[in-house]
């Protein structure tokens, strides 16, 4: 019945409201009148003199007819309420006054009907003082005028008596009318407050970032969500309204079952036990946890934080205001800060490592990494058949492994670790049955991480070089000469990590005729050989002592030009090749067939080591086990048109004699 009225001044608003209310009541008065007036015909029939009955009946029917028409008008329009009121007053008043006149004027007791009119019109409709008095006086006035105009003889006491009653009724009716007007005003103000409050509530509920709603306990294990909730609820949980639903049921799609059972216990506690705010807060099972929110296309993972705030409702029942916050961003930020801390730690570690290295080594390292990364990028962009894809994977693998070796050489732990992770991914790809081009692209993002670390590293190196004020030409000359020193450090680090004792002895190092740019290749070969020696060949100190050797193993190195070639003589005094292990591994990997195992002699097995992907290390570690080291050595030497020979004696030593044409090294 009452419409929401917005943006209309309050006073004007009230007059519209008042008019509407008066109109509603006038309809009732009108209806009462046109039903009651004809029913009095029955009374007339009993008490009236016969000659008057017909006349009164006509009065009543005519008046009722007019009132019906008025009722129709009242239904159509709510304007002119006060005129309508006055009209009823005059119409019914005149009719009754005329009747009293016929029945003996002021002496007649029929004036009582006027009281009814007064009560109906003035009491039922909230006019207030002024209009109430106007109506009441109109009725009394009509009564007086009609009976004076056609004056019958009367007793003055009767007139006084009648007037006494009429005025008393008028007083009561007007007072009630005034009070009703005041009440209406209050009712209106209260409604306005409610509307404004509701609007404010809606605004708050639609604009807060928190999901808010109230939960009440319906039965022992039933907790029901209230009718009001903030807009954010649907945004956070990605559902339509939860109003009227069970709280546990509403949350069950988002959390594991264990959480929901814990929540049920918790709800039972907060609703049925005497708990204080600390307890409610401390035992909250939904304080920051992961939720799977189904959105339009996918399941989104959010971190949600629920809070339970106790509220006492007017009814005295306990209920809780639940607030839900999406704290994914905050949590992500926390994690990112943590990551940044770790990153900063890595950077400082790398910085320290760089500071310990000579500029030549660094220069050379940067150059090498750049070459390897561009090799990897080239390999990734191959768009050919499966066979070439697996070649590409091998190339990437070799490049990554080589970079890792060099990073380890310079003690750039973080970079080496990242490359180790990268290798792990490539191994996964290599081992997958069906390799497709798209698979290669998946490692692009991993390569990006490597590149990012490398860029940081490069920046650090550049800064340090600028700080140290070294010139590039100066660094070029020493790149080769720094190899033995760097290898010694590498040997020191790896042997400590693997619990071995090893020393490197560089006997002859003559790089005459070699350009600085060849340092990278030579070092790469030596790094792989060294790692291989320490991991596979050289024994633990106790084992060495047992077999009568010095507890410290040694690697002896001779490098010098020999005619047209550059010669590398590499020797370790370890236990040499473990052919039993190689055979076993060969069988496991399917490279050796069970039926042909007899035919595999030591020489044949040795060749197997130089196959890509073959390693006998127990498990893959940072330093060995990937099965790529010996393969790199072979590939590098072959690529340079060089050659190598292996000499070994079981339990005593392994020796590599490598020759590379100097001409080729000069062209690199």
């Amino acid at each position, binding site marked *: 019945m009452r419409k929401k009225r917005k943006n209309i001044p309050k006073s004007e608003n009230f007059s519209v409201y008042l008019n509407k209310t008066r109109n509603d009541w006038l309809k009732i008065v009108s209806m009462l009148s046109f039903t009651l007036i004809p029913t009095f015909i029955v009374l007339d029939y009993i008490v009236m003199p016969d000659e008057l009955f017909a006349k009164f009946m006509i009065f009543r029917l005519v008046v009722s007819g007019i009132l019906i028409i008025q009722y129709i008008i009242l239904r159509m329009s709510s304007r002119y309420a006060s005129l309508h009121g006055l009209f009823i007053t005059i119409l019914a008043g005149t009719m009754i006054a005329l009747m009293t006149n016929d029945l003996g004027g002021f002496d007649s007791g029929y004036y009582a009907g006027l009281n009814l009119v007064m009560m109906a019109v003035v009491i039922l409709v909230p006019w207030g003082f002024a209009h109430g008095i106007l109506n009441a006086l109109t009725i009394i006035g009509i009564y007086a005028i009609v009976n004076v105009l056609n004056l019958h003889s009367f007793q003055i006491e009767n007139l006084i008596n009648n007037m006494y009653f009429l005025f008393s009724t008028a007083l009561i009716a007007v007072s009630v009318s005034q009070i009703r007007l005041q009440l209406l005003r209050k009712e209106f103000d209260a409604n306005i407050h409610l509307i404004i409050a509701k609007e404010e509530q809606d605004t708050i509920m639609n604009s807060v970032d928190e999901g808010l709603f109230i939960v009440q306990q319906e039965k022992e294990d039933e907790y029901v969500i209230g009718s009001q909730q903030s807009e954010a609820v649907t945004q956070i949980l990605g559902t339509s309204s939860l109003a009227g639903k069970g709280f546990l049921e509403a949350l069950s799609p988002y959390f594991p079952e264990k959480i929901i059972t814990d929540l049920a216990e918790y709800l039972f506690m907060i609703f049925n036990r*005497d708990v204080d705010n600390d307890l409610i807060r401390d035992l909250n099972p939904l304080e920051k946890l992961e939720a799977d929110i189904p959105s339009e296309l996918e399941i989104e993972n959010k971190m949600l934080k629920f809070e339970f705030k106790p509220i006492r409702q007017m009814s005295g029942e306990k209920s809780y205001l639940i607030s839900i916050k999406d704290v994914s961003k905050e949590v992500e930020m926390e994690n990112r800060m943590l990551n940044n801390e770790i990153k900063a730690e890595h950077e400082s570690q790398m910085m320290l490592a760089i500071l310990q290295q000579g500029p030549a080594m660094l220069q050379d390292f940067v150059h090498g990494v750049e070459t390897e990364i561009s090799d990897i990028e080239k390999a990734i962009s191959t768009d050919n058949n499966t066979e070439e894809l697996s070649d590409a994977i091998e190339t990437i693998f070799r490049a990554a492994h080589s970079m890792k070796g060099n990073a380890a050489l310079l003690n750039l732990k973080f970079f080496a670790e990242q490359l180790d992770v990268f290798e792990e991914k490539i191994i996964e790809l290599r081992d997958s049955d069906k390799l497709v081009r798209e698979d290669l692209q998946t490692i692009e993002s991993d390569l990006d991480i490597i590149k990012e670390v490398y860029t940081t590293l490069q920046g650090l190196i550049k800064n340090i070089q600028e700080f140290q004020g070294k010139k590039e030409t100066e660094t070029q000359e020493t790149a080769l000469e720094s190899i033995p020193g760097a290898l010694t450090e590498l040997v020191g680090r790896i042997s400590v990590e693997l619990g071995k004792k090893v020393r490197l002895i560089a006997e002859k190092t003559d790089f005459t005729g070699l350009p600085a740019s060849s340092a990278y290749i030579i070092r790469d070969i030596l790094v792989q050989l060294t790692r291989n020696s320490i991991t596979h060949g050289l024994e633990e100190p106790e084992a060495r002592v047992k077999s009568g050797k010095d507890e410290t193993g040694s690697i002896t190195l001779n490098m010098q030009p020999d005619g047209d070639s550059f010669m590398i003589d590499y020797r370790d005094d370890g236990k040499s090749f473990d052919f039993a292990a190689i055979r076993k591994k060969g069988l496991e990997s399917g490279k050796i067939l069970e039926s042909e195992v007899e035919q595999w002699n030591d020489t044949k097995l040795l060749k197997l080591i130089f196959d890509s992907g073959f390693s006998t290390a127990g498990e893959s570690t940072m330093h060995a086990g990937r099965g790529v080291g010996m393969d790199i050595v072979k590939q590098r030497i072959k690529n340079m048109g060089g050659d190598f020979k292996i000499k070994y004696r079981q339990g005593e030593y392994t020796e590599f004699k490598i020759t590379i044409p100097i001409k080729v090294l000069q062209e690199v």
Partner: protein
Amino acid sequence: MKIMIVDDSTIVRTVIKRYLAITKDEIVAYAANGVEAIERFKEHLPDLVTLDITMPEMNGLEALERMLEIKPDASILMISALSSKDTVVKAINMGAAGYLVKPVEAHQLIDKIKAIKEAANEGSGFKRIFRWRRQLL
């Protein structure tokens, strides 16, 4: 108030005993596991028990249930690790008076005991009537 301390760690028992010296309450019994706790409980019928949740023989929840069967108005304070929120909730639902997080601190324990005493006093006579009246109004 008669107090009983149940914990499998001697250190915790000693620490709580030392804290309780401040409140001057009488410690009537100690127990190191659930089974022993129930026996001592029957014997002494203490008003307040500090009960470790994780114990050998019988866990804290079971012991709690038995104790409340024997003496329903006993106040039982659960002592728990921070990680076992769900067990604490269960204990409170079963009728535990509250809980304390390990390592227990003196003021924590003393505050809880004070609150329990007040609640016990409020449970009788005029105070209860006044509380009802307050709630009704």
